[in-house]
């Protein structure tokens, strides 16, 4: 590979694992063209982009999934850990390989739209595939958080996963019996939830996803909640009632979540909690 020392990709992956990544893969920047809209492709962020390095990890621990307190998953702070791995890899590519590297910001470009879809990047880097519930699931480790680095370095790319983690065998059996799956059952779009889908020839096909409603659950206490309470307060003419809104539990918790943003990234895990493929293969006591 011109310009890159032999074993550069393997060495980079090894660094990623040492830094705390559970999985690491590489996608070709060109692979995004068929899937991502213009403006949200690697070359739009870094001219001359050749590869996208994706790391996954800092997923909830076995204990987190077993926890009965809703606050454990809602306030745990693990997502930042995978972002630090991404940042470290970007620095390493520039300092050791001499190629441009851009750490994909985890925030949004506008509204809820990311600069580059990290889930798409994970799929194209062969690290997982979309589940019926939405998140990309890795076959060995299940649900995880992602970080990505776009680089001009022509790294060796990985192939897209041939077999997907979803639907898991127990879900296929459940579908045969009940025409639903654990995730569809826990959050059904036709009964106040977010998800609808079918299994066709053993493959998951999502037919509907209510992103706006999902947002009220995943980001209950977040920017949207802040805006809603502020609007309600300004529309309220009674001063005592305004105080109840601005000093109340919902608004206070929302401000805590915004302030301690890194530990409140996701506030709903119900579709993943019931997913047999989401928690990884390792058994815990």
């Amino acid at each position, binding site marked *: 590979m011109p310009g890159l020392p032999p074993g550069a990709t393997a060495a980079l992956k090894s660094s990623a694992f040492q830094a705390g990544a559970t999985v690491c893969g590489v996608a070709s920047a060109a692979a995004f063209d068929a899937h991502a809209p213009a403006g949200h492709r690697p070359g739009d962020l870094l001219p001359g982009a050749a590869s996208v390095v994706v790391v996954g990890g800092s997923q909830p621990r076995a204990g987190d999934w077993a926890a009965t307190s809703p606050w454990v998953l809602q306030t745990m702070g693990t997502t930042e850990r995978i972002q630090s791995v991404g940042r470290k890899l970007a620095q390493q590519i520039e300092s050791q390989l001499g190629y441009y590297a851009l750490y994909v910001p985890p925030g949004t470009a506008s509204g809820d739209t990311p600069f580059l879809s990290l889930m798409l990047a994970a799929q194209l880097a062969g690290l997982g595939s979309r589940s019926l519930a939405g998140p990309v699931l890795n076959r060995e480790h299940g649900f995880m958080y992602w970080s990505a680095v776009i680089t001009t370095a022509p790294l060796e790319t990985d192939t897209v996963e041939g077999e997907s983690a979803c639907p898991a065998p127990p879900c296929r059996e459940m579908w045969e019996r009940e025409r639903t799956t654990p995730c569809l059952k826990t959050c059904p779009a036709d009964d106040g939830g977010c998800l609808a889908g079918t299994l066709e020839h053993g493959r998951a096909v999502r037919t509907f996803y209510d992103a706006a409603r999902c947002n009220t659950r995943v980001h209950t206490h977040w920017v949207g909640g802040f805006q809603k309470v502020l609007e309600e307060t300004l529309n309220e003419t009674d001063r005592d009632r305004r105080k109840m*809104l601005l000093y*109340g539990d919902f608004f*206070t918790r929302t401000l805590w979540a915004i302030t301690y943003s890194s530990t409140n990234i996701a506030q709903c895990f119900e579709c993943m909690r019931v997913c047999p493929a989401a928690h990884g293969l390792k058994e815990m006591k």
Partner: protein
Amino acid sequence: MGVFRLDPAIYNRYKDQVLKLCNSFQRIDRPGLSDRQIAEQLGLDERTVTEIRCVAERDCYPLEEWEKAIEFKRKATLEWSALALKRPDLKPK
């Protein structure tokens, strides 16, 4: 509808009792009660107690107390500095 709205009348009726029973004013030998325990004691539901407590925590001192806090810290730090660092020039006037 919107988010849970506490009736100001309920708030005014129970805020002092809730503040007294929770951890707002602590005694080292007597830990404050949880919202659930306060609810049982006052015959209210837990959600209402949580709401009363949250509002009361914010409400119990006026914003002027925050302004006083700024001055308190400025003076206390300088007084300590003058004494501990042997810098009498720092003593607040």
